[in-house]
């Protein structure tokens, strides 16, 4: 194509700038209008943790809701959170703050869902756990590189002790022992902490050099040791005898994981009846049942399923459109 006249070219460029700029601006304004209701809100006054049931994140509203029983209708009105967990006297609500680089706000809430403490950390909300007493809280975020650096992800896991108020923003510095020897590597990443009833012991995943280990940690001694390989996102049963976790069973990036349960006394593991790939930290709804999120059916973002912890039975769709399950008793 030949555009010989300078004026014609200039007119074309100016017209294009106006048209494309106007279009961009229009779309941005439209998106601003459209997403306005999805603001982050606190819990309604009537919505507290006083009622037992399954608490979860409702994908449609981004707010926490409660399912009192298997057949009962859900109750809406919790705070907006991207990830939620509650136990004992406390709840933990992770929210992604708007803007880039990604930051997450960790809100510690009491049983009335009133804010007790807030901490802002880098990254995308990923895992949240509260110890049975509510005294220990832990969360994991994904931190991303930006466009110039590597696009790989790394995790940051924090532990907050409400008894002392101590906050460990990254547990990566904990002295780690693998196969009996102190372990040092630049690429150590922790995620998915779960606490024991004694409010001291905890389990987590550590990954390094492409392998994942289950580690057992001791908060008072501030040490950790690796127990087994290929364990991610552990979750300790209420009776503290078993660990549910996801295990990498395939190199297919579309379906790499499967849920397993490990008996801590015998160190024997068995798969759940759930055969789909679960990328979630499973939650014990009671000593016999696990809940976990899977990509949703019928256009929903995510659904909560349950399966018996002993590997029998079949998975059951519990909450369509839910994620981040946690039972409150």
């Amino acid at each position, binding site marked *: 194509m030949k555009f010989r006249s300078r004026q014609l*070219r200039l007119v074309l460029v100016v017209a294009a700038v106006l048209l494309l700029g106007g279009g961009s601006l229009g779309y941005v304004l439209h998106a601003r209008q459209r997403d306005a209701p999805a603001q982050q809100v606190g819990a309604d006054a009537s919505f507290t943790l006083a009622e037992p049931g399954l608490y979860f994140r409702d994908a449609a509203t981004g707010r926490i809701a409660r399912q009192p029983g298997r057949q009962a209708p859900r109750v809406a009105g919790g705070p907006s959170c991207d990830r939620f967990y509650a136990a004992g006297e406390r709840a933990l609500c992770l929210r992604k703050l*708007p803007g*880039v680089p990604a930051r997450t706000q960790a809100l510690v809430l009491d049983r009335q869902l009133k804010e007790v403490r807030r901490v802002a950390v880098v990254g995308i909300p990923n895992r949240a756990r509260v110890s049975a007493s509510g005294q220990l809280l832990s969360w994991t975020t994904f931190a991303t590189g930006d*466009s110039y650096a590597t696009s790989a992800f790394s995790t940051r896991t924090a532990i907050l002790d409400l008894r002392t108020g101590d906050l460990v923003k990254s547990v990566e510095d904990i002295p780690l022992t693998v196969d009996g020897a102190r372990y040092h590597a630049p690429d150590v990443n922790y995620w998915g902490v779960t606490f024991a009833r004694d409010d001291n012991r905890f389990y987590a995943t550590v990954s390094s050099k492409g392998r994942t280990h289950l580690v057992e940690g001791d908060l008072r001694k501030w040490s950790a040791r690796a127990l087994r390989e290929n364990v991610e996102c552990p979750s300790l049963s209420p009776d503290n005898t078993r660990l549910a976790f996801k295990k990498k069973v395939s190199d297919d990036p579309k379906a790499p994981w499967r849920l397993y349960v490990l008996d801590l006394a015998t160190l024997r593991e068995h798969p759940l009846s759930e055969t789909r790939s679960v990328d979630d930290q499973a939650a014990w709804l009671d000593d016999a049942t696990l809940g976990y999120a899977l*990509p949703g059916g019928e256009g929903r973002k995510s659904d909560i399923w349950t399966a018996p912890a002993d590997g029998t039975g079949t998975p059951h769709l519990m909450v369509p459109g839910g994620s981040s399950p946690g039972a409150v008793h």
Partner: protein
Amino acid sequence: MYLATNGRPDTSPHPSGVRRRVPGTVIALGAVSLVTDVSSEMVTAVLPLYLVLGLGLSPLQFGFLDGLFNGATALVRLLGGRLADRGGRHKRVAGAGYLLSALSRLGLLLAGGAAGGIAAALAADRLGKGIRTAPRDALISLSSPPETLGRSFGVHRAMDTTGALLGPLVAFAVLWATADAYDAVFVVSFCVGLLGVLLLLLYVPDSVSGPVGAPRVPVSRPAKAQHKPLRDPAFRRILYAAALLGAATIGDAFLYLLLQRGLDLSPTLFPLLPLGAAAGYLLLAVPVGRIADRTGRRLPFLLGHAALLGAYAVLLAPVSWASLAAVLALLGVFYAATDGVLMALAGPVLPAHGRASGFAVLQTGQALARLVGAAGFGAAWTFWGQGPALWVAGLALAGALVAAWRVLPPAPDVPVQPSPSRAPEAS
């Protein structure tokens, strides 16, 4: 209006020697790159967030998608160079690449959450990027007199980097204004990308005839006279030197990581490190290009790598804020003295009708070598720890520098004096 007068067949050529200004085509291509980089860096900056947060992809899946296309780009680049040389279709091939990348944003928008659609859109973007690079650099070099090639590439790279710096800012502004509406980022990126294509269409001439001052003839050659850059010993030496040095390059990400660890830098500040280096590159690209024109491009190219070696050396000492500034400045010098300068070094060696292919071979060779270097350093770090790995990298780079010093012909591009290997129609 000065832009692109150079490309109009009806203007009389400027007498060489009087020309002080950068050719209009180079400015026009710089503007296209600037606008396009705003568009593409917008998407690059938000894509990881969008995929993992917006769509719920696991980082493992994201890493897989991201890595999938990186290897394929190298081959596409060779193809783009080849296509451009055949019949002198530089503008058309480059334009197709720019258009493809712009359209890929629309693909991201329409894909919704479907992983297949997203993969296709990412593939289209990489394809476009691979296709356009060599023809674009060939256009720059063909529209500049050989004695000012360094400056021309410097101007282009400075404009290109400006766009790369602006892109993330625009993306963050859009996300901030819309409370994280990723689709709005894609729409704006698409519009900006289209503007880049339009600028190319309007202001870059259809055919360039090599150095200004020469009679304008099309650069096409009969198909049987296809130039094989690898048969040219002068070009081969440049390729070997670039690959050798590339293989001793450990990748910026590692340098930033070493800085971050040494200073225990806040993760919020971490993304600013590459911006610091890019700012240095932006400021130095033109001056270093001019110096390269005066001294010959061999010396700045080697000294640029020496600056990188200096950055390794700084990191071997305990890291302080002063060493952070030094490393970023040295990285800026490294990019300014090697990226465009390498093209300026190779340009005069390649005949006009084989220039895009030659550039493509050179860029692909360098990129592959750097991939090997980064992977090797990653492995060394994992097995020996960061100190020993850095020592090994430094020694390897020093060795590569000595070797490249010997491999590179001392003055393949003496200014003014025409290079004997230049094709007849370009002199």
